């Protein structure tokens, strides 16, 4: 018998700022001065304020089911802050942090979660995809967008964010596999918050890391501390840069924890211990970065108060506008279906609007 090694792989895990806010070594260029991290911090604070408000609105019957990103803010902010404006974001339903950074407004988010399609007609990032509620369905879209960039020889990349549960779906694998031979400028970011509703990460797959799923596609994969916004941004920035330069796709697994219920429709106490959740508050991304900034002398109690107040104002203003926004007219159901409405559906539209006797 001859047995030889055909291939070898390893997966790394990276962190820059530990759970207590201590740097584990030199920080990357973009974080060289602690002050440079303040926008990231403020964005995480805004996200948390937004999430809290959205949950409150849902509890009082003024918003639909909502998926909080409590404790996971660093994933989206780290990733989005690594993007260039011309890159395209394809978010799952729990990445409001990334969307807010990209310029989607809190009002748009509220409209969407309040059940109004206008919330996906972003005034800001016009090419970004709407939220993907179907798990992993947006992964091949990210490959398609990346293929468009590659074909046009544009130095742009697509960034797809999805969950640990999403890595079990065929769409996810098919998309990263296609990205391989075509060297697509795509970054697949797995927000591993340890849970897919009630199914823990360990029941989702026997893979020791989710990053290693990249190996199946022949693309690089790495793990980062997803509660460390610096580590997330650094890994995603490197991956995006390589993608834009023709170096192909990367899978980044960001390890975090879902501190909230799955959504407002969920009661996580049915399936997980409060104790584990409580323990996971240690090292959560906002407290962690605040500790770092404070230790660096870049953040004061006053700064904190301002940040909280600014976030509250932004969210309150958005809420007011949201609550004051009348629903779309019924015609809107029809008017965006096709570029031009076919005659048969024109007739239905008229019927729906009561302008004409129905005939079906």
């Amino acid at each position, binding site marked *: 018998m001859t047995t030889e090694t055909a291939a070898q792989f390893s997966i790394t895990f990276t962190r820059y700022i530990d759970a207590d806010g201590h740097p584990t070594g030199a920080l990357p260029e973009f974080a060289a001065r602690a002050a440079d991290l303040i926008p990231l911090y403020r964005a995480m604070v805004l996200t948390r304020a937004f999430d809290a408000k959205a949950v409150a609105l849902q509890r009082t019957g003024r918003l639909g089911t909502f998926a909080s990103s409590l404790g996971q803010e660093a994933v989206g902010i780290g990733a989005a802050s690594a993007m260039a404006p011309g890159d395209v974001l394809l978010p799952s339903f729990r990445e409001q942090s990334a969307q807010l950074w990209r310029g989607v407004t809190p009002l748009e988010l509220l409209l969407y979660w309040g059940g109004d*399609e206008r919330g996906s007609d972003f005034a800001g990032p016009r090419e970004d995809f709407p939220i993907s509620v179907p798990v992993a369905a947006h992964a091949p879209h990210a490959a398609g967008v990346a293929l468009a960039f590659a074909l046009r020889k544009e130095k742009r990349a697509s960034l797809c964010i999805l969950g640990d549960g999403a890595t079990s779906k*065929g769409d996810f694998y098919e998309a990263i596999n296609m990205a391989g031979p075509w060297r697509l400028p795509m970054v697949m970011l797995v927000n591993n918050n340890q849970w*897919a509703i*009630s*199914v823990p990460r360990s029941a989702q797959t026997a893979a020791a890391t989710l990053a290693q799923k990249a190996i199946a596609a022949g693309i690089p994969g790495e793990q980062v501390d997803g509660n460390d916004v610096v580590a997330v941004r650094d890994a995603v920035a490197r991956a995006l840069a390589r993608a834009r330069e023709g170096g192909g796709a990367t899978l980044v697994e960001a390890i975090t924890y879902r501190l909230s219920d799955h959504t407002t429709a969920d009661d996580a106490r*049915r399936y997980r211990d409060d104790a584990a959740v409580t323990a996971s508050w240690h090292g959560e991304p906002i407290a962690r970065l605040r500790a770092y900034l404070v230790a660096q002398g870049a953040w004061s109690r006053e700064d904190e108060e301002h940040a909280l107040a600014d976030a509250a104002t932004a969210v309150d203003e958005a809420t007011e506008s949201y609550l004051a926004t009348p629903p779309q007219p019924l015609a809107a159901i029809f008017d965006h279906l096709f570029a031009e409405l076919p005659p048969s*559906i024109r007739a*239905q539209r008229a019927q729906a609007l009561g302008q004409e006797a129905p005939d079906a």
Partner: protein
Amino acid sequence: MPEIALVEAINLALARAMTEDASVLVLGEDVGRDGGVFRATDGLLTRFGPERVLDTPLAEAAIAGISVGLAAQRFRPVAEIQFMGFAYSTIDQMLNQAARLRTRTRGRLSCPMVLRMPAGGGVHAPEHHSESGEACFTNIPGLRVVYPSSPRRAYGLLLAAIRDPDPVVFLEPTRLYRAAREDVADDGVALPLDRCFTLREGSDITLIGWGAIVRDMLAAADRLAAEGKQAEVIDVATLVPLDSASILASVARTGRCVICHEAPLTAGFGAEIAAQLAGPGLLSLLAPVERVTGWDTVMPLPRLEMQYIPGVERILAAARRSLQHG
């Protein structure tokens, strides 16, 4: 005989089937500890253990696909898809595999599986959670498609679906999960899978439909009665195979028919019923067949969904149109 909600009737039928037949398994996303996002499988894990109630990874196509493998090995898997909006990736397995295994092997292997899922809108759920995609499953020979609209029918038909030796797609009206309540005897008695249910007799017009809209049909029938017109109300319940005989017989008596469903009009399953009326049923018709359905548009997000979903008023308008005809 306690009054229970439709979702509890589902739960009761699952437990009954698991008790009487050790080959019945329940699997799907969050069906175990969580008891299913609608609690349809609540308590089953505790009662029957993790070898009978399996939380799966998040992969609908494989949920259907492993069910085919289990069924070929004489288990009776009852797989839950969390919402119909996520069931479309199972169609390949259901059509090319589950529905054909018996035919392909001349009966050597078979596929006694049930694919359950909530369907339809009206609960202000997020995007992709309010689908009525039954038509994607009704042109698939070898597959049964069942869609009860009351706790008792949910109980009896689910038992029948699980006991059936062939694959069944079992749709549950989300809107009625909690809203529909009824006395249900947990007597293990299945209802027939090849029969419509006449919920109310009437000689002036036939209202036919399935799923949540059946309640609106009954309400419309009340209103029509107040106007002096007796509507017969038929819950199709089993779409495929269709109990054409009962439907044709009813319309033969009434001469008028309103077909109601939440799914879009064009090529919705209502078309099949109307087509049979245009064919063998033609001579019975005293008025054009009316279809009251969702519009041929994408199901809107919650703010407009109740304007999309047809309700009592549209059914009444159609019925009156029909009654006024000729």
